[in-house]
Structures are given as structure tokens and as C-alpha cells.
């Protein structure tokens, strides 16, 4: 069990903010950390790694990483950290990047095999694609058989298909190594696929904590479909109005009545929902 009870004053974009998190994480579980930018997710991850200071306590099993008396250095915590922008050692080959962490050739070969990088092991990171580099970073983070794996938006710099492939590999590696994992992510589908628990942070505090299903599937009552979107434009056509809404990467048109259109302004965050209907998935 990992017990986290920390506070830290942060200077965010909207002034002073207090990060105050109390969390217990089961060993071997996969927790996703999400929330709007500036909510303190990355800072929490860095505090867990020991890369930033905080008040409070962090205990992992019998070990105390942080309490009033001391803070164990990142070197002593035995963690894995995957950064958003890979952060590979440019002066070393792929294999050397892994062996730098721990001189365990068998484990390195095994990890490179799983991630289909074995053939590239003598190459330098700069000659690899973004997806390949992030796979190397993932392997590197597992080389010391960490007690805790921390990932800071590991896939956000990659395109859709590469992201899916890496998600599969993360699942594979998590299943094999059973490493307790905390991952920061903005992508609901990614969280749904990977995590067994999702924690939502807003302004430094936990506002939701549950399974991805209960937290992310935002349907209530008899609504079958509900999407969050941004209102881009309201076009008036005779007596009705047509709203153009951006939902994720897609634009949709929704018919509005005169009264509905009255209360809306371009730029609003709105929810588009529909009841009782049978969608066709093709």
C-alpha cells in the first residue's frame, strides 16, 4: 500500500493555490491522474518521485519516503519515471540507455523484445521516431524493477495509432511486472483502457475518485449519450437556430429552438445529450 498525505503551496496561473492530496494506492494497481491543466497533477507526480519538496508524509509499504523529519532522495526511492518528452540520454545507444539504470542485460533484452525495439538497440535515440523513443523511455523506467512507476502524460506527444500501440504495450508490461503505476493523462479513452482507478484533481484537490466507468461515463438519468463540447457558432435559419459545436476533434450541428439559443453564447462549454435512441455502430 502507498499512503500519500501531502500539501504544498503552488504558484499557479491563477495565483496562489494549495495542493492538498490524501490518497491510498493499492500495490500493483494502475491509477490515472487527470484534471484540467494547472490542477497540480504533474507536481503531485514529481513530489512522489522526490523531485519536488512538499509537507506531509509518503509511505510505501514499510518505507517512509517523506515525513516531517526527512525526505528520501529520488536516487533512494527506486522508482521509474516516464517523461512526456522522452528525456533519453542522447549520448548513449538504446541498449546503453537501459543498462545505465541497471546492468541487467537479460532484462534489457526482454524489455526491448516486448516493445519490438531489439533490432534498434545499437541506434542513438535521435535517429528514432517519437513513438520508438517513448517505448525506450518506458523500458528504461522498468530497468530497476521499480516499486512505483510514474508516467507524466507519456503518450500525449504521439499520434492516434502509435498511442494505441503503446497503450497495448503498457498493458502488457503492467500485467507482467505488476508495477504499481500512477499515470497523468488527459485522454479518457486511454484512461479507460489502462487504469483501474481514476483520480480527478481540480485546483489542487481531489474532486472525483473511482473506477473509470463511474467517473468518466458522464451519463445520468435516462440520457444515453452526452458529450461535452464548445459552442463555435449559432446560425439563425428562419425560426430555428443551428448551433455548431466542437466535440473533441469533431464538429457537429445541433438544432436549437429560439429560446434555447437565447441563453447561449459563442465560446460556452455546453453538453450535448440525446435520449432514447438506438445508435448504429459501423
Amino acid at each position, binding site marked *: 500500500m502507498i499512503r500519500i498525505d501531502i500539501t504544498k503551496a503552488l504558484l499557479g496561473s491563477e495565483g496562489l493555490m494549495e495542493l492538498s492530496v490524501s490518497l491510498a494506492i493499492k500495490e500493483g494497481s494502475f491509477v490515472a491522474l487527470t484534471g484540467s491543466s494547472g490542477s497540480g497533477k504533474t507536481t503531485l507526480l514529481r513530489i512522489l*518521485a522526490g*523531485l519536488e519538496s512538499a509537507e506531509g508524509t509518503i509511505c510505501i509499504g514499510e518505507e517512509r519516503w517523506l515525513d516531517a523529519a526527512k525526505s528520501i*532522495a*529520488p*536516487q*533512494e*526511492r*527506486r*522508482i*521509474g*519515471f516516464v*517523461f512526456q*518528452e522522452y*528525456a*533519453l*540520454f*542522447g*549520448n548513449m545507444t538504446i541498449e546503453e540507455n537501459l543498462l*545505465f*539504470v*541497471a546492468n541487467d542485460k537479460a532484462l534489457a533484452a526482454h524489455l526491448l523484445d516486448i516493445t519490438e525495439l531489439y533490432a534498434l538497440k545499437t541506434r542513438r535515440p*535521435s*535517429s528514432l521516431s517519437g513513438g520508438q523513443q517513448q517505448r525506450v*523511455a518506458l523500458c*528504461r523506467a522498468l*530497468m*530497476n524493477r521499480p516499486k512505483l512507476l510514474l508516467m507524466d502524460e507519456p503518450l500525449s506527444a504521439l499520434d492516434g495509432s502509435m498511442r494505441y500501440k503503446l497503450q497495448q504495450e503498457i498493458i502488457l508490461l503492467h500485467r507482467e511486472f505488476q508495477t504499481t503505476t500512477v499515470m497523468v493523462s488527459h485522454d479518457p479513452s486511454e484512461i479507460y483502457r489502462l487504469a483501474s482507478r481514476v483520480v480527478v484533481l481540480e485546483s489542487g484537490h481531489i474532486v472525483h475518485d473511482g473506477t473509470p466507468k463511474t467517473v468518466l461515463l458522464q451519463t445520468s438519468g435516462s440520457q444515453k449519450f452526452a458529450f461535452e463540447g464548445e459552442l463555435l457558432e449559432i446560425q439563425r435559419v428562419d425560426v430555428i437556430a443551428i448551433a455548431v459545436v466542437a466535440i473533441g476533434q469533431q464538429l457537429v450541428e445541433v438544432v436549437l429552438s429560439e429560446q434555447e439559443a437565447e441563453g447561449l453564447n459563442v465560446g460556452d462549454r455546453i453538453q450535448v445529450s440525446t435520449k432514447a435512441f438506438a445508435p448504429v455502430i459501423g
Partner: protein
Amino acid sequence: MLELLKTIEWTPFILSFELAAVTTVILFTISVPLAWYLSETKARIKPFIEALTALPIVLPPSVLGFYMLVLLAPSSVVGRAVHDLFDVQLLFSFSGLVVASCFYSLPFMVQPLQSGFESLDRRMLEASYVAGKSRWTTVFRVALPNMKPALMTAIIITFAHTVGEFGVVLMVGGSIVGETKVASVAIYEMVEVMDYAAAHLYAAIMIGMSFAVLLGVYTFNYRQRYKRGGLYL
């Protein structure tokens, strides 16, 4: 011409290069921790230290030379302490030249190293800490190898700058053959006695060697940049 070449006394050149090599090694040892500290620290003392290390760039060599004379004189506290401890006389000796050169060339080693450290990806260094590596291992195995152009610039420019020293060396070392008479001082003396032929030759050799060294640095850095961009394999 051939006659002239045969008469060349190489000792001043050898001395110049010896002085430059020793100074570079000492300065590298001192400057890596100093530059690393300056790149990491948020302490208020940082601008103070930076200004202090940059002083030799703006000061006339005579100012530095004057204080060196005062500092290293056998009658001074430092001069006496060094003499008692190591039995070394610093003024008008090769050792004294090394001490003076270390002060004079310090910014040329510290500044490129510091900006090299500052330009590194912080996350890469953090990845090394998280992997359990100490600060020193991180500096020598991750930081320095990933800033080769800055490293080359620091070492070569320090070396070249020390070879090109004149004012401080003359004041602190004088012109003792085989001990403190480096190439730049030798040329000065040739001009003074109006031996222009020899001065020409010495000066030309200095220009040729200095240019070769600088060309080497710039070529190396040019290639490194291409390598980083992935264009040069």
C-alpha cells in the same frame, strides 16, 4: 628562409603550450563543479560569483598582473605560505605563471560550461537521478557527454587564450629563458630589439597554430550540430 627556420628557438613555443596545457587541466577541474553549481543554484550570491568570475574579461591585464605581483610576492602572506608549504617561489617562475593564468582564463572555462549545463534538458538529468545515479555520475556520464560543443569550446578557448596571454605573463613572470619566456613575450622582445625577421616568423607561427586550433573547434561544433539534427550520420 631555410636558414632562418633552422635558427628558430622553439623553447618559447613549448613553454607557451606547456603553460596552456597545465592551466587548462587545472581550470577544467575547478570549473566543472563551479559551473555546475552556478547552473543549478537559485541562491542570491549567484550574480556576485558570476560577476567575479567574469572580471578578467574586462580588466586590463596590467590590473590583474599588479595584484598578482602583490599577492604572490615572497613578502606577502600567500607568497610566504606557499613558499613555506611547498618550497616554491611563485614570482618570476613557471608556477607563478600557472597561478596567474588560472585567474586570467577562468571565465573562458566557466562561462561555456555553465551555459552548456543550462541548455541541457532538465528532465534528462532528473531521469538519471530517478535511476539512482548520484550528482557526479550524472554530471560525468550524462551532462558533459551531451554538451560536447560547449565542452570543446571551453577547453580549446581556454587553451588558446592562455597561449595568447601577454600582459599578465610579462608582469608576473618577466622573461627568463626556459622558465617564463613564452612565445608572446619572445615576440615582444624581438620587436624591441628590431629583429623584425625573427618577429615575423614567430608571429606567423603563432597565427598559423592559433587558426588551426580555432578551425578545429568550429569544425567540430559544426559537425556536432548536424549530428544532433540527425542529418549527419
